[in-house]
C-alpha cells in the first residue's frame, strides 16, 4: 500500500518539508563553513568582508600567528589533562555508584536513590558551593574544576536504568549462590555487559569537560592553569587581542582580529572530527535518559 501513487497534496507536503529542512541545515552549516573559510583566507580580504563562503587568497598566515600563541597552547594542554582525568573520575564514580542504586534488594534502595535525585531539584546555589570549595582548600587546584561536578545526576540515572533493565537479577542470584560477592560480580559480569553505556558516559563527560569554563572561571586564579575555553573567551569576547598577540604581530592588527576565526576552528576541531563517528552513541544516551525521564 505504500507504493500507491502519491496525490498532489502529498507531493506538495513533501516538497515543503524538504525545503524547510534543507534551509535549516544551511542555517546550521553556513556559520561553521564561513568561520573555517575565513581562517584560511587572506586577513585583508576577510576584514573587507569579501569572504562569503569559500576561502579567498588561501594562506596560513593566521594559523602561523595562532601557533606562536603560547598561552593558548598551554591552556590547550590544560584542557586535555582536565578532560582525561575528569572523565576518568566521573565515569568511574558514575558507573560504580549507579550499580547499588539499581539493586532493588538492597536495604535502603529508595533512600539512596532519593538522596541523589533530590539534588536535581534543590541546590544550595552558586555562592554556598563556592564557599564550600574554598573551605575544602580546592581553590586554584585542578580538582576544583573536576570534583564539584564529578557526578551528573542525569547521567547517574541513565546508568542506573541501564543496569536495572539490562542485567537480569537471575544472573546475580546465581552468582550469589556460587559465593560471588557484589564487587566481584560487578567487575566480572556487570561491567563487561555495560561497555556500550560506558562509551556513552565517556562521551558525555568528555565533551562537558572539554567545553567547561564556568567552574574554571569561579575557582581558578592562576592564568597558567586556565583551560582552553577561558582563554578562548578572552580572545573572542573581551577584545584583549592586542595584549595576547606576540611582539611579532603587534603591528598586524588585522591578523589580531582574524585570529578569532582560527582559534574557534582549532578549539572545536577535535570534537567535530569525532562527532560523526560517535553521534549514534550520544543519541542512544539521550534516549535512555528520555525513557526514564
Amino acid at each position, binding site marked *: 500500500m505504500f507504493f500507491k501513487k502519491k496525490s498532489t497534496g502529498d507531493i506538495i*507536503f513533501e516538497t515543503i*518539508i524538504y525545503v524547510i529542512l534543507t534551509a535549516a541545515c544551511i542555517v546550521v552549516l553556513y556559520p561553521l563553513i564561513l568561520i573555517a573559510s575565513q581562517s584560511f583566507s587572506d586577513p585583508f580580504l576577510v576584514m573587507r568582508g569579501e569572504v562569503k563562503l569559500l576561502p579567498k587568497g588561501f594562506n596560513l598566515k593566521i594559523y602561523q600567528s595562532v601557533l606562536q600563541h603560547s598561552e593558548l597552547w598551554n591552556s590547550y594542554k590544560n584542557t586535555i589533562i582536565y578532560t582525561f582525568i575528569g572523565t576518568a573520575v566521573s565515569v568511574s564514580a558514575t558507573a560504580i555508584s549507579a550499580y547499588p542504586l539499581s539493586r532493588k534488594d538492597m536495604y535502603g534502595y529508595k533512600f*539512596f536513590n532519593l538522596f541523589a535525585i533530590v*539534588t536535581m531539584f534543590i*541546590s544550595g*546555589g552558586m555562592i*554556598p558551593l563556592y564557599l564550600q570549595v574554598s573551605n575544602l582548600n580546592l581553590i586554584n587546584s585542578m580538582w576544583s574544576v573536576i570534583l564539584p561536578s564529578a557526578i551528573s545526576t542525569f547521567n547517574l540515572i541513565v546508568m542506573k536504568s541501564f543496569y536495572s533493565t539490562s542485567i537480569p537479577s537471575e544472573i546475580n542470584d546465581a552468582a550469589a549462590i556460587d559465593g560471588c560477592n557484589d564487587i566481584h560480580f560487578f567487575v566480572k559480569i556487570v561491567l563487561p555487559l555495560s561497555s556500550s553505556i560506558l562509551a556513552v558516559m565517556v562521551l558525555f563527560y568528555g565533551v562537558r569537560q572539554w567545553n567547561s569554563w564556568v567552574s574554571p572561571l569561579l575557582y581558578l586564579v592562576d592564568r597558567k592553569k586556565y583551560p582552553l575555553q577561558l582563554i578562548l573567551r578572552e580572545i573572542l569576547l573581551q577584545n584583549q587581542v592586542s595584549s595576547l598577540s606576540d611582539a611579532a604581530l603587534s603591528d598586524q592588527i588585522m591578523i589580531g582580529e582574524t585570529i578569532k576565526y582560527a582559534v574557534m576552528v582549532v*578549539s572545536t576541531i577535535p570534537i567535530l572530527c569525532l562527532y560523526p563517528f560517535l553521534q549514534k552513541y550520544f543519541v542512544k544516551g539521550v534516549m535512555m535518559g528520555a525513557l526514564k525521564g
Partner: protein
Amino acid sequence: MHYLTQAGRKIGKNKFLYIMLVPMVLYYVLFHYMPMYGAQIAFRDYLPSIGIWESPWVGMTYFKQFFNSVYFGRLMRNTLLINLYDLLVGFTFTVALALLINEVTSRRYKKFVQTVLYMPHFISVVVLAGLVVSFLSPSGPINNLIRMLGGETIRFMQEKTWYRTIFVFSGIWQDAGWGTIVYLAALTNIDISLYEAAIADGASRFKRMLYITIPCIMPTVIVMLILRMGNIFTVGFEKTMLLYNELTYETADVIATYVYRRGIIGAEYSFSTAVGLYNSVLNLATIVIFNAISKKANDIGLW
C-alpha cells in the same frame, strides 16, 4: 531490638554494595548537601574570618534588601520575558522540527539532516558566543546583508532591544536539533496500524500528521513542557555571561549573573546567597506546582 538486628542482617548481606556507594555519598554530601546547609548564611551576616557558626543571625534582612532594590523587578522581568520568548519560539520550533524530520521518507536524507542539526549541540558556549558576536558585528555577514538591502548598520550586541532575540535564536541554532531526539524517540513507538488504517481511509500525509502523529506525541510534549516550566525562573548563566555587557544589562541581567557579580566579584556572600536561595525556592515551587497541574489535567507527571 529485633528490628535492629534484622536491619543489620540486611545491611550485612549487601555490605559490598554500600562500599560501592561511598564515592557517591561523599560527592553529594560535599558538593550538594553541605552547600544546601551552608545556604543558611542567607539569614546570617556571614564573615569568612569567623565562620558560619559565629556569624550573627540577621533574619530576613538580606531578602528584604533584595526585594526592595531596583534589581528585583528588573531581574524577574528579564528572566520571565526571556523564558516566555524561548517557550513560545524555541519550544514550539523544536516540536515542529521533530514532526518535520519524522515525515522524511528517505532514510539517507533523514540521517544527513539529523547529523547536521545535532552538531551545534557539541560546540562550546564560548565558541557559540564568538560566532554570534562575529556574525552580528558591524562588519559581519548579517550587517553586510542589511546594508546590501539598503538598511543601516545595526550594532546588535550593544542594543538592549536586540538582546533577547539574539539570546533565544542562538539557543535555537544550538539546541533545537538536539531537542528533537526525545520526540523522535517517542514517535518511533506509534502503532503502525493507525497509519495503515488512515491510509486505507484515504487520509493525506498532512492529515495523518495532524490527527495521528501530533496526538501521539502529546504526552511527551507535556512532560517536556513541565520540565521546561520548572526552569521558568532560570536563565542560563553561561550564555548570559558571554553575551551581555554593561550596555545591555537592562534587558539581559538575570538572577544568576547578578548573584555572580555581587557574590563572587563583590564578595557580598550573605546577600548573594539570599538572592540565590530565593531563586532556588521559586524554582522548586514552580516545578511542584506544574507537576501537580499536569497530573490533575492529564494524569502525566514527573513523580
